[in-house]
C-alpha cells in the first residue's frame, strides 16, 4: 500500500480560459494533517474540490489510492465515497438533525444507521438534539452537525474547507479537538484549508502556502513556520503579506 493518498502531477484548473490553479507536484501522505494556507482567491478551495472529485482537473493527473485520474477520467463511486468535505458554511438539509447525519449512510445503503448516527452525534456533543429541525440550530451547532455528517461515514480522507471561519472560540476548539481525535485514533487523513496561520500551526503536520493558484512552498510545520525557504512564506507567516 502506498504511503500517499494523493499524488498530483502537472494539475491545472481553468475556468473560462482563466487558469485558477497550477500544481506541478504535490503529495499528501496517508494519515497526516495537511494544511493549505494562503489568502482568499489563492486556489485552495478549488484544489479541495479536485481532491473530493467534485470537479475534474483541466490538465494533469491525480492519483488517489493507487488509481489515477485525468481530465477525462470518471472517478468510480466507491472511491469518491472514501472522501468527504466539511465546507465553511454548513449546508444542512431541511430535515431533522439525525436525518442530516444519516443522509450519507443512507446514500450508501448502510446498515445500523440509527446507531452510527447517535455515536457521531455523541462525538460532536449534540446527542440531545437528534430530533430537532436542523434549520433551527445555531451556527456552531450546525457546523458540528455538518462535521458529524462527515465523520459518520468514516472516510479515508476528510477535507475541511475553512470549517471554523465563522465560529466562536468554544466551537473552534471543539471542532479542532474532534478532527484531531479522528486523525489520531482512526488514521483519517485531514486536508485543512485555512487562512488562519495559527490554526495551521496548531493542527498541521505539513503546511503548503498557495498564492495566485500556485503552491509556493510545502514543508513540515516547524520548518514552514520557523525557517521557511521562500520569502513569500516568511512574509505570510509574519503577517506582512497584504491581502
Amino acid at each position, binding site marked *: 500500500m502506498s504511503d500517499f493518498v494523493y499524488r498530483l502531477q502537472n494539475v491545472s484548473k481553468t475556468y473560462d480560459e482563466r487558469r485558477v490553479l497550477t500544481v506541478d507536484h504535490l503529495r499528501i501522505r496517508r494519515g497526516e494533517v495537511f494544511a493549505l494556507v494562503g489568502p482568499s482567491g489563492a486556489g485552495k478551495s478549488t484544489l479541495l474540490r479536485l481532491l473530493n472529485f467534485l470537479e475534474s482537473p483541466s490538465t494533469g493527473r491525480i492519483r488517489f489510492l493507487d488509481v489515477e485520474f485525468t481530465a477525462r477520467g470518471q472517478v468510480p463511486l466507491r472511491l*469518491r*465515497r472514501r472522501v468527504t468535505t466539511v*465546507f465553511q*458554511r454548513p449546508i444542512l438539509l*431541511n430535515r431533522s438533525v439525525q436525518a442530516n447525519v444519516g443522509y450519507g449512510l443512507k*446514500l450508501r445503503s448502510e446498515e445500523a444507521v440509527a446507531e452510527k448516527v447517535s455515536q457521531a452525534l455523541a462525538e460532536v456533543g449534540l446527542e440531545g438534539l437528534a430530533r430537532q429541525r436542523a434549520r433551527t440550530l445555531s451556527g456552531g451547532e450546525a457546523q458540528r452537525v455538518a462535521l458529524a455528517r462527515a465523520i459518520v*461515514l468514516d472516510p479515508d480522507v476528510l477535507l475541511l474547507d475553512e470549517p471554523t471561519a465563522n465560529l466562536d472560540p468554544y466551537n473552534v476548539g471543539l471542532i479542532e479537538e474532534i478532527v484531531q481525535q479522528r486523525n489520531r485514533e482512526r488514521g483519517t487523513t485531514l486536508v485543512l484549508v485555512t487562512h488562519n496561520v495559527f490554526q495551521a500551526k496548531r493542527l498541521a503536520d505539513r503546511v503548503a502556502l498557495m498564492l495566485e493558484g500556485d503552491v509556493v512552498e510545502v514543508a513540515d510545520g516547524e520548518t514552514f513556520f520557523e525557517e521557511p525557504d521562500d520569502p513569500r512564506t516568511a512574509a505570510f507567516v509574519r503577517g506582512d503579506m497584504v491581502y
Partner: protein
Amino acid sequence: MHSCTKKGRSIIDEIVRGIAEAFRLIVTLDPALMEVVSLSLRVSGIALLFSTVIGIPLGAMLGLNRFRGRRLIIALLYTGMGFPPVVVGLFVYLMLSRSGPLGQMTAPIIPDLFTPGAMVVAQTIISFPLVAGFTMAAVMGVDPALRQQVQALGATPWQTTLAILVEARIGVIVSIIAGFGSIISEVGAVMMVGGNIEGSTRMLTTAIVLETRKGNFDLAMAIGVILLAISFAANLIMQRLQGRTVDE
C-alpha cells in the same frame, strides 16, 4: 324595475334550488352524476399523473443544468403555461382526426377522437408546462451550494437531483396543485376532443355547459357546486401535504 327585482329573485331561487339539488344528487348518489364525476376524476387524474411524470423531471433538468437550447425550451414552456385550452383542443383535434398525422396511425397508444384517451392527451398538454415551470422555479430557489454538499457526501447524479427536489418539495407540491387546477375546471379542450357524449366523454364542465344551454339551471348549478367541492377537496388535500412541510 319591478321585473328586474323579480328576475333577481328568480336567479337567487335558481341558486338556492341548485344547491338543494346538488345535495339531493350527492346524497342519493345519482348514477348519471356519479358517472360524470368518476370520468372527470379519472381523466384529470390520469392527465395529472402524466403531467407529473413528464413535468417534474423536465423542470428539474431545466433548473439544474445549463445547456445549449435551454433558454428556448424555457421560453416554450412559459408559452405553454399560458396556452388557451381551446387552442390545445384544436391542436389535439387536428392531430387525432382521421385526416390528421396521428389519426392515420393505428398504434394502440394513440387514442381516437371523442374518447376519454383524447381528453387525457389534451389535458396533459395543458397541465405539464405548469408542473414543469413551477418545479423549475422551485428547484432554482434551492441553495446552489446544497448540490455540491450532497455530491461531497457521495450522492450519485440521480441522488443529487432527488435531494434537491425534496428540498424544493413545497414548490413541487404547488406545481402539482397548479397543474390539477388548470385541468379539472377546463372546458374548451375536452369539449373539442371529447365531444361531450353522454356515458362516454361527458365531464363535469361539459355537462354544466350542456345543462345551461338546455335551460336546466338547477342541474347546471348542482354540477357546478360538485365541481367546486371536488376542486376544493383536492386543493385541501394538497395543502395539508404542503402544510406539513411548511410548518416543519
